[in-house]
């Protein structure tokens, strides 16, 4: 738990790298300089409105805090929590299982894949704007730019988080198929759905239920976690 202190004290105590490589949530009072055109700290007005004012009191994550400090914001921390990422040297990944792609396990995917292959025989394939290899190189460069490759090397072996491995596998599998095809879109959807599934049900939103013809509070799933969602 974090006690009351100024934002600059907290930043110098923890450092930018620690704040980015951790799950940090803070309650703060803040004041941006008037020269800041687009402040980045969200404040709730009511149950459906969020504004980004120059001054206020709010909850924010470590990433939002670091960006606000870079914008010259004066911050007073009222309280908060830091949970660091797991110590990387303690988790050798030698025995980690390789991801098995879903079409080998899910009958629905097999069916979709079969239909997709059939459709190729009758409908002329849409020409992607970029070739698959160009797309792959572009997306691979994006992943490399995150700095994950360089920051996750231990002395013995290169470290890969389970999150990174899953995303990379989904990306590679997606790029085996032409842009706009069933399988390409399916893998894109699965990768994008991950973050949504981590936040599912957190805000107790209601959804229409076709079985009972009424609205129900959306239940949370196995992936839900306030840590990952934030």
């Amino acid at each position: 738990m974090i006690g009351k202190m100024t934002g600059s004290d907290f930043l110098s105590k923890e450092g930018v790298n620690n704040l980015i490589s951790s799950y940090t949530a803070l309650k703060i009072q803040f004041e941006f300089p008037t020269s800041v055109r687009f402040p980045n700290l969200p404040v709730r007005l009511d149950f459906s409105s969020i504004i980004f004012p120059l001054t206020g009191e709010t909850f924010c994550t470590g990433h939002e805090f670091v960006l606000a400090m870079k914008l010259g914001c004066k911050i007073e921390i009222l309280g908060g929590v830091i949970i660091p990422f797991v110590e990387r040297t303690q988790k050798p990944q030698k025995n980690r299982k390789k991801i098995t792609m879903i079409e080998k396990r899910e009958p629905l995917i097999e069916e979709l894949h079969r239909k997709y292959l059939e459709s190729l025989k009758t409908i002329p394939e849409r020409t992607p704007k970029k070739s698959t290899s160009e797309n792959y190189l572009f997306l691979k460069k994006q992943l490399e730019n995150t700095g994950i490759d360089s920051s996750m090397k231990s002395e013995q072996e290169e470290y890969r988080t389970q999150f990174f491995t899953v995303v990379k596998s989904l990306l590679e599998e997606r790029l085996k198929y032409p842009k706009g095809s069933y399988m390409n879109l399916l893998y894109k959807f699965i990768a994008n759905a991950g973050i949504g599934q981590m936040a599912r049900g957190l805000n107790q939103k209601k959804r229409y239920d076709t079985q009972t013809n009424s609205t129900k509070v959306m239940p949370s799933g196995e992936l839900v976690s306030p840590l990952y969602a934030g």
Partner: protein
Amino acid sequence: MSSLASSFLTKELVNQGDGSYHPKTQNGLISVKDLPKLMTPSGIELSNDLHEYIDYFLGSYHGGRNESYLYGVVKGEFYDYDLPGAYPTAMAMLDYPD
């Protein structure tokens, strides 16, 4: 489609990882994923200090920001910025909590 994505990611992240996806259960009864149970009188009492820090994480979840930086009639060219693969890229940078 959502349940398909959910079941695939559950297998790969929760079941197939090293079991650290969800932090340890408090007193063998309450964990982070049991939010409805956690925010009850017995949940708060049985969860050690879990309920204290979960407030901060719930409060700091705001969803995405989508904004027009200019309003009104626009004549001529304008730009619509988008981050391709923003969600998966952010997810790839996560790690299990200690």
